[in-house]
């Protein structure tokens, strides 16, 4: 209880510091209000977004897209990662392809994403998928390879077959590293929400920012940034909790 309280107070003090810094920058820099809105104006923008309900709508849409993109990426990347991790002979051919595709920004792909997936929800989901897919895939493959040989020896000794081997040994043994990949992926793919919702989406937090930017409403842009930041933080914590919950089930 008391720990929780001090922690909250740290967070609050941190944000107060940030607000103070921000306000001071606005004052000292002498920036035009409409170009660099002060905290109070942004606060009002957030309140207005909440009051007219649009924040909630955008948030819902974004979370839905993110949920679909991220979860399909996780499922497919973990499944493929387990496969490739267990078939190193195959992986040597796939690895260079992945390594070259990974560092390309989803933005660069957007003409092709529109070609294949149209506009609206699909490209946003695909971009989030892409951003999450590669880190999870790579961390799963390397996690499978890092499984302690002693566990594999135990399994061989017990004459375990392929499927139980994966389900009972390899998946739980590599889970901590996979979870680490999931953690990294949630950060990077959330970052690409903004890019994803630039391609013809008509709602969502990313759309909110792009749209506000085109309206030259930088207070709304800031409001969107704050929402994205807070949501990203909460998502990260949520994945952390889930991770710890699974680990507790597995007695670590």
């Amino acid at each position, binding site marked *: 209880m008391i720990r929780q309280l001090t922690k909250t107070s740290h967070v609050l003090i941190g944000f107060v510091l940030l607000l103070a810094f921000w306000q001071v920058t606005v004052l000292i820099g002498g920036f035009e209000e409409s*170009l660099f809105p002060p905290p109070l104006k942004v606060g009002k923008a957030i309140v207005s977004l909440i009051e007219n309900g649009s924040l909630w709508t955008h948030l819902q849409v974004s979370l839905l897209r993110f949920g679909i993109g991220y979860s399909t990426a996780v499922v497919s990347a973990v499944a493929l990662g387990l496969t490739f991790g267990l078939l190193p002979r195959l992986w040597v051919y796939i690895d260079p392809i992945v390594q070259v595709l990974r560092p390309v920004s989803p933005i660069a792909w957007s003409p092709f994403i529109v070609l294949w997936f149209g506009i609206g929800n699909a490209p946003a989901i695909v971009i989030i998928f892409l951003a999450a897919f590669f880190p999870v895939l790579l961390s799963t493959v390397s996690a499978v390879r890092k499984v302690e040989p002693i566990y594999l020896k135990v399994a061989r000794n017990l004459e375990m077959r392929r499927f139980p081997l994966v389900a009972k040994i390899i998946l739980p043994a590599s889970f901590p590293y996979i979870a680490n990949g999931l953690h990294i992926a949630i950060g990077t793919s959330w970052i690409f929400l903004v890019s994803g919702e630039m*391609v013809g989406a008509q709602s969502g937090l990313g759309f909110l920012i792009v749209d506000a930017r085109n309206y030259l409403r930088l207070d709304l842009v800031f409001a969107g940034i704050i929402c994205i930041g807070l949501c990203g933080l909460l998502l990260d914590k949520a994945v952390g909790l889930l991770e710890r919950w699974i680990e507790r089930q597995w007695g670590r």
Partner: protein
Amino acid sequence: GQGVKQAEAPAGKDSKKPVIKIGYLPITHAAPLFIEEELGKSKFKQFELQLVKFGSWPDLMDALNTGNIQGASVLIELAMRAKEQGIDLKAVALGHKDGNVVVTANDIQQVADLKGKSFAIPHKFSTHNVLLYLMLKQSGMKLSDLNVVELPPAEMPAALAEKRIAGYVVAEPFGARSVAIQKGKVLFQSEQLWNDSVDCGLVLRGDFIRSNKDAVAEFVAEYVKAGAVAERKDAQAKQILSKYMSVEDKVLDLSLQWIKYDELKLDAGSYKELQTYMKEMGLIPNPPSFEDFVDNSFIDEAMKR
């Protein structure tokens, strides 16, 4: 809202009205579209209109080229380029006339002052680039005399306010913005550089036009009507515009002053002029011919009514 939708759904099912998806950017230049949708919503007989907002021209063009939208209100030069690249597009109307301004920092008195400074345009294939070219030509300068940068329009007022650029030319309301906050001034109106300049156009995909002639005819007719409403620039028009664009009234008023929405027909003369400039600037060596690219049959029909 909900009641309308429910009433509309069965009708849509019965008659299988084609959906026209039109892409746009939230700029004053697309005002006829906004008004057409707002006034005509659920009243169109031959089609359903769906406006799709984009954040930037490249994103919009991707959607248009791949057929994810049937048409767009887009920089006409950009559409010409797509046409040249083999995308089947037709310009059926203009978005507006005039209303592009060259905005510069307050200390710029004449074009020569821009020499060696940075100057922003939204896109290579834009009327704004042409206007810049013409402005420089009139003052005996070349594009290479200043540092031309492509910048997202939204970034321009900030860049000008912080003196990162000496000026810019772009669609509205981004020009009015700098003037409204007194960080910039109007150096030229577009008509001072190029009378009857051609800018944003209403472009549709050729395959869609061919298979939905009636729908397109009604769509363009309504579009022209909406242009007339926009041209009134009255309280109703402003209220609709601010719904689609949500800019401050001051900025909107200012930008509306500069724009005309009446003659929305792209005539051969203006197009030829544009073709010449494009060739001169080396942007499109072989611009599509007027006959290939412009389809004025619908707008002619509409104006007859």
